[in-house]
């Protein structure tokens, strides 16, 4: 109770404090740092490295926004949130944006009053089991004990999947990824289920990765992306178009290697020119300067570079681009035009 009253008081205080929705952009600029909500740790997506600095695929989005707005990719205060605390953190103004493997759903958008600015990873929920159980399909999981993180879409999908398939299961609710991992490895649950990208990430941190299999069934759609609060559309635009800039940069062949050259003078591709501010005034329309996208892209490279560096096939996590390839390469990544 002590704890809950405390949280309650914090929430109320937080709600009370988030007075008159001042423009988030101005607040961030005045503060000089961007408060970015991340998870407590999913290697590859967001996790502190050996030096205690946060890095990962989602972290790069935070850094890109900070670079665009504050001219400093390092001016980010990372706020670790669990599946349960993330929405309160965003709604109360504790963070300016969330970039933490969060699924875009109708009720989060409409009922919880958030604005998903796009999708940076098209995912789906999967199951991981120890190989020694000999399970080859999710339909064989009747009666299993399943570790799940509370406050996620995962637990709702799971309930639906087992009900629809007339199977029973024993849910073991857990708050953070680390605890889930501990229970799973000790055999306190048979199955660990979450977004399949996160399963790959978790498995990569196991001592013996080959002892665990990810089952073929994908039981849901989990479009993961950054989100902001409802009501401040200008701020939403900035985060949305920063993400789009990273995606468009890959499509247009703008990389961290050639961006200096491409942004020095207008090229013969007008869209690159508009993106990099050598033509038109897109940055100004958002309340930023002309170089915003140059800084955002330089922060962690374009979308593809960030993907390959943190979660791609040459990393321990080893995810293929699949749905997350550019639309020109058969994927779903498609930035609206910079015009």
């Amino acid at each position, binding site marked *: 109770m002590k704890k809950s009253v405390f949280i309650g008081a914090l929430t*109320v205080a937080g*709600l009370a404090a988030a007075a008159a929705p001042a423009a988030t952009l101005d607040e961030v600029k005045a503060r000089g740092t961007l408060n970015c909500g991340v998870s407590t740790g999913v290697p590859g997506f967001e996790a502190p490295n050996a030096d205690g600095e946060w890095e990962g695929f989602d972290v790069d989005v935070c850094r890109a926004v900070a670079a665009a707005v504050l001219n400093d990719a390092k001016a980010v205060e990372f706020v670790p949130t669990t599946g349960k605390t993330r929405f309160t953190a965003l709604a109360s103004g504790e963070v300016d944006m969330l970039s933490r493997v969060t699924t875009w759903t109708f009720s989060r958008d409409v009922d919880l009053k958030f604005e998903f600015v796009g999708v940076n990873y098209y995912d789906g929920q999967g199951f991981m089991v120890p190989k020694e159980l000999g399970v080859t399909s999710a339909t064989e999981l009747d*009666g299993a004990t399943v570790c799940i993180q509370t406050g996620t879409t995962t*637990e*709702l999908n799971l309930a*639906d999947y087992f009900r629809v398939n007339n199977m029973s299961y024993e849910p073991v609710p*857990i708050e953070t990824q680390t605890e889930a991992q501990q229970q799973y490895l000790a055999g306190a649950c048979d199955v660990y289920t979450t977004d399949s990208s996160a399963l790959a990430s978790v498995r990569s941190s196991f001592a013996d990765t080959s002892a665990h299999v990810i089952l073929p069934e994908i039981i849901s759609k989990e479009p993961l992306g950054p989100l902001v609060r409802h009501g401040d559309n200008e701020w939403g635009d900035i985060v949305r178009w920063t993400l789009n800039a990273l995606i468009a940069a890959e499509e247009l062949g703008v990389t961290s290697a050639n961006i200096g050259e491409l942004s020095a003078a207008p090229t013969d591709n007008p869209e690159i020119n508009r993106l990099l501010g050598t033509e038109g005034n897109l940055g100004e329309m958002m309340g930023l300067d002309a170089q915003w996208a140059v800084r955002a892209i330089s922060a962690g490279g374009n979308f593809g570079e960030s993907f390959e560096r943190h979660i791609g096939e040459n990393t321990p996590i080893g995810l293929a681009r699949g749905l997350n390839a550019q639309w020109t390469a058969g994927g779903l990544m498609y930035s609206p035009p910079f015009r």
Partner: protein
Amino acid sequence: MTTLTDPPKDSFRLSMLLYDTRYRSMTIQVIALLGFSAFVWWLIGNTAQNLSDLGKEPSFRFLGEPAGYDINQRLIEYNSQSSHFRAAMVGVLNTLVIAFLGCILATVLGVAIGVLRLSKNWIVARIMTVYVEMFRNVPVLLWIVLAMAILIETLPAPNAFRGDTPSASMILNSVAITNRGIFMPAPSFTTELVSSSVAWWLVIGVFVASVLGVRYVRKSATATQNATGVRPTTWYLQLGILFVPMAILLLVLGLQWTSPELKGFNFKGGLHLRNSLIALWLALSFYTAAFIAENVRSGIMAIAKGQSEAAGALGLRPNRIMSLVVLPQALRVIIPPLISQYLNLTKNSSLAIAVGYMDITGTLMGISLNQTGRELETLLLGMLIYLTISLIISTVMNVYNSRMQLSER
């Protein structure tokens, strides 16, 4: 020359509110009250304003909508299609279960440790001191997490019970202790005359009736004793009242014990005490027992030494002195702080989510809050529920307390 007269009677002036000590304290209190009310008013108004700016007007309608998630330990019918309200009820019952089990174990342990700490045996007394200092000086959350980690890491997984040469085996072929909890035989009824919940109520009803019957027999025995000086022998009657009706009822209902069996991934059948429940229960009880032990010790020490010396002079043996003379008096000192320990235990049980025990904090103020985004509503409801539970506990204990007080003649 003026003569001495009564001091002039001041009529009331406004400045007296400030300068006259008779009124000043009242003035200050009124101003403080007004200020406080204004602050609360502002807080409520501001919160409501901000919520409506966010487009989130307070509403409790979400309680009727399907919860969508499953809960492992449920004492009432519940599935993912049930409402958030029902999920909250499952949580409330789980909170009550842990509070009830915890208070009992904490009391038993606490009384034993408190008495032993006063033992003349040096080693026993020292061990109890170490126990008390160890448990009450480390946050209970750490004990809970530690208990869970020990259960998970040291006990065998159900898989270890499998195969021709299993590395773990069931106790007496009926109890399996695993890192998912303890699976043990559970009673059930084969009868088709009544449904199983009716059968359970019958059992409870007969039990209560038997206990009342025994009390009646004892009372009339005392009455006879007071009247004639001879206490009639009633023990066989008491035993009969206690056991015969129950035995007949259980026979009619067809009592049977189902043992757990390893089927598929898990043990099936019987009773499953999840390790989240066990870890939380043990940690809360051991922790609270340390405080109760101190209450018990101070209660016993509050009884004048002359009392036990006098009892000894009358020829009572030491354990009779403790149970007939010291403890009944010590209880009067022990009960009031015991009430607050019970309340503490109940409130501390809200740390349950640390081990994934689905109490009211985990369901209503956890998953329901998160899935519906109704922070304010769920937290207010949750606080109301804890308040109600706490008030009930303290009312019951206060009644008990007033009955234990010295009735002065």
